[in-house]
């Protein structure tokens, strides 16, 4: 037997004895210590100081800094800015936040255009598995949800944004249900709630382990039924401004014919999502192909401030074997249902429902200190013991609640009902992002931001299930506020003045890299 098989056997044989074992919770100090020592956010050499721009002097990871300080693909001698579209609102990004903003703006009577990089719905939203946090049970309250999230976020959350998030949760859940989203129910008709890491009560609404698919499928169908004009495969490559601090439109790139499309808009809502495909610090990622942080670089160039741009979420349990699945998520809900994490010796090493940053740090610690398991491709990981879920909750639980997870692994002849699998942290979520106010407006006037691209709501660590909630609550807020603003405004002049300013600051700061941003797609093509 190979080392892997020996270790796996230990997990299989210790299952029964472990099932009743209590793991101690970490105290606030222990958790702090663990995270500071092992979490990638605290690895100094991974960080750079921004040399110019709105967040000059602040830190972020090298992979993002390069893009923020990168050159624009729009040349200084770009031809006259003649708009091909004139709309009240340009919505950038066709994930959950963009779709929600579009539906809200359309209902408010605004003339809108949506531009997205892939197809409508190809996004991080469609991938969400675990669920959406909403305080509905009688024991629970928005207050409790707020306190849990603030603690989870290391107190760095913007309290006003967080209050709105939790307080509007129940009504947006109702809105989704009215559109036909089918969350799992209990026998009495009430919504079924599950526990999530870092939450003091079960608070997750979900649709088996297809929550994001269900949400995105319904939202996309609504956008199509409302006959919203959507330009697919047309990412934004540069914003347009009036040169006086307001956003007035954007330049899109049609990926099918490489043409540029100029859009003039009274307001712009940016909902371009996250950064997983930057593979920060070499991590694999759970994110979709288009998660390259485009929104951050284009808004930074246009002069809008970022916040908490130095903090990222590494989901503790990304698959590391088989290699074809590397980075794909093993949902946290499986740990909520009782799955254990075990090192090479077959021993548990952390309470599995600590917040994500703590669990990820503990997994990294095990692997750094020689208690990880090496895969044939050279990656390291620890075991997640999923058969235990059936043992604790009854035969058939995995099949009933995690059909997606079973299917994903079964393609590679791995039966998660029978054997443990190897996992390691995977780059999952951008905790910070573009700074917004209570209505979702950035520091650049008339530029609204919603969803993962924004920052502040989740502090330094987002709790599971708070992001799906965020995209709906703030998608709606941005949609409503932008419609109102557009109704009271005229079109502003289109200019690239911000780009001249950016180029001047860039050269004064001595930056002369040949990096061009936004990145649009990761480069996976093997070079000869």
């Amino acid at each position: 037997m190979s080392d892997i098989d020996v270790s796996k056997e230990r997990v299989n044989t210790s299952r029964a004895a472990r099932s009743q074992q209590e793991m101690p919770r970490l105290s606030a100090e222990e958790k702090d210590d663990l995270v500071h020592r092992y979490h990638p956010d605290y690895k100094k050499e991974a960080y750079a100081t921004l040399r110019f721009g709105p967040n000059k002097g602040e830190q972020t990871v090298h992979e993002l800094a390069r893009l923020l300080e990168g050159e624009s693909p729009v040349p200084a001698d770009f031809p006259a800015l003649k708009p091909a579209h004139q709309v009240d609102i340009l919505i950038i990004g066709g994930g959950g936040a963009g779709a929600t903003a579009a539906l809200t703006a359309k209902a408010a009577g605004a003339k809108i255009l949506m531009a997205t990089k892939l197809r409508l719905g190809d996004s991080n939203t469609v991938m969400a598995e675990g669920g959406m946090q909403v305080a509905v049970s009688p024991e629970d309250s928005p207050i409790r949800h707020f306190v849990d999230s603030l603690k989870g976020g290391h107190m760095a959350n913007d309290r006003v944004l967080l209050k709105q998030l939790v307080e509007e949760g129940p009504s947006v859940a109702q809105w989704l249900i009215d559109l036909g989203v089918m969350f799992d129910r209990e026998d009495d008709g009430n919504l079924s709630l599950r526990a999530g890491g870092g939450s003091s009560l079960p608070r997750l609404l979900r649709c088996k382990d297809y929550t994001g698919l269900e949400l995105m499928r319904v939202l996309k169908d609504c956008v199509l039924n409302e006959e919203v004009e959507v330009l697919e495969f047309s990412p934004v490559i540069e914003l347009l401004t009036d040169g006086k601090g307001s956003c007035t439109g954007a330049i899109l790139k049609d990926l099918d014919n490489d043409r540029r499309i100029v859009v003039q808009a009274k307001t712009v809502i940016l909902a371009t999502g996250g950064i997983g495909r930057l593979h920060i610090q070499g991590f694999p990622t759970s994110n979709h192909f288009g998660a390259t942080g485009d929104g951050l670089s284009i808004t930074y160039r246009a002069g809008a401030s970022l916040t908490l741009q130095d903090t990222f979420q590494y989901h503790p349990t990304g698959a590391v074997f088989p290699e074809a699945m590397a980075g794909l998520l093993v949902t946290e809900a499986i740990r909520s249902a009782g799955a254990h994490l075990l090192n090479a010796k077959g021993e548990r090493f952390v309470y599995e429902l600590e917040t994500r940053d703590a669990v990820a740090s503990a997994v990294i610690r095990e692997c750094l200190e020689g208690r990880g398991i090496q895969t044939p491709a050279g990656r390291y990981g620890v075991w997640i013991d999923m058969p235990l879920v059936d043992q604790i909750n009854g035969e058939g639980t995995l099949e009933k609640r995690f059909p997606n997870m079973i299917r994903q692994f079964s393609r590679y002849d791995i039966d998660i009902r029978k054997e443990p699998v190897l996992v390691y942290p995977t780059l999952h979520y951008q905790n910070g992002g573009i700074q917004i106010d209570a209505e979702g407006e950035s520091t650049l006037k008339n530029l609204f931001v919603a969803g993962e691209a924004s920052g502040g709501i989740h502090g330094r660590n987002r709790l599971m299930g708070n992001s799906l909630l965020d995209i709906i609550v703030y998608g709606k807020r941005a949609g409503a506020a932008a419609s109102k603003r557009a109704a009271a405004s005229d079109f502003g002049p289109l200019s690239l003045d911000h780009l001249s300013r950016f180029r001047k600051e860039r050269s004064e700061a001595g930056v002369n890299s040949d990096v061009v941003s936004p990145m649009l797609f990761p480069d996976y093509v093997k070079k000869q």
Partner: protein
Amino acid sequence: MSVTETQGRASETIAVEIMGKKYRIPPGLTMLQAMWHTGHELVRGVGCLGAVCGACPSTYRTKGDTKIKTTLACQTQVEDGMSFSLTASYYPDKKVVYHFDEMKDPKQDLFHYYPEAALCRNCDACTVACPKGIDVRTGVWKAVFGDFKDASDLFLSCVMCSLCVPVCIADIAPNQVGLFARRAQGIFFEEKKPQLSLRVKEIADGKFDTEWERLMTLPDEAIQAESSV
């Protein structure tokens, strides 16, 4: 670092045909990874890379088999002797515009929007084509007979890849029928959820307002001590 760089042992390779051209690649790659490995730039045909968005429908044939099968390229591992093609990232299937708030009887309205649904001839080609293993034919029949509940359960994992559409001899778009049934089930036929309605009302009535006032300015240390995890 390229995703494919750490793949397999360098010496061992397998034969594959991608859109008619022959290559040798390391074992263990998905179809999309195999395309990157052989120098293909991809824009259309890639989405989530996790088998849930339906952007990567593909057709393939395995060594010694005559049957052309359908799959999602992002999560299908290439085998020795396989021949495959990334088919299309856009199928022009019929998506009818409808508004549930104008409908009274969605089980009848289904035939107004998708009249072909009733013409299923039971050939089961849709089920065979489905890369998610859905019993598509039964799903369509359930929808047609008004059993939207069962149809919804069957179509739960549908990623709208449209692979079931071109194979249908009755010109049905089964994925669209499934989506219609699911949304109608959710809007018209699911049970009430008393707790959620109550909570929405409590918030509107300001039940938590005094608590909020206290909490918003509470120092971090005091928040840390609030009852919670």
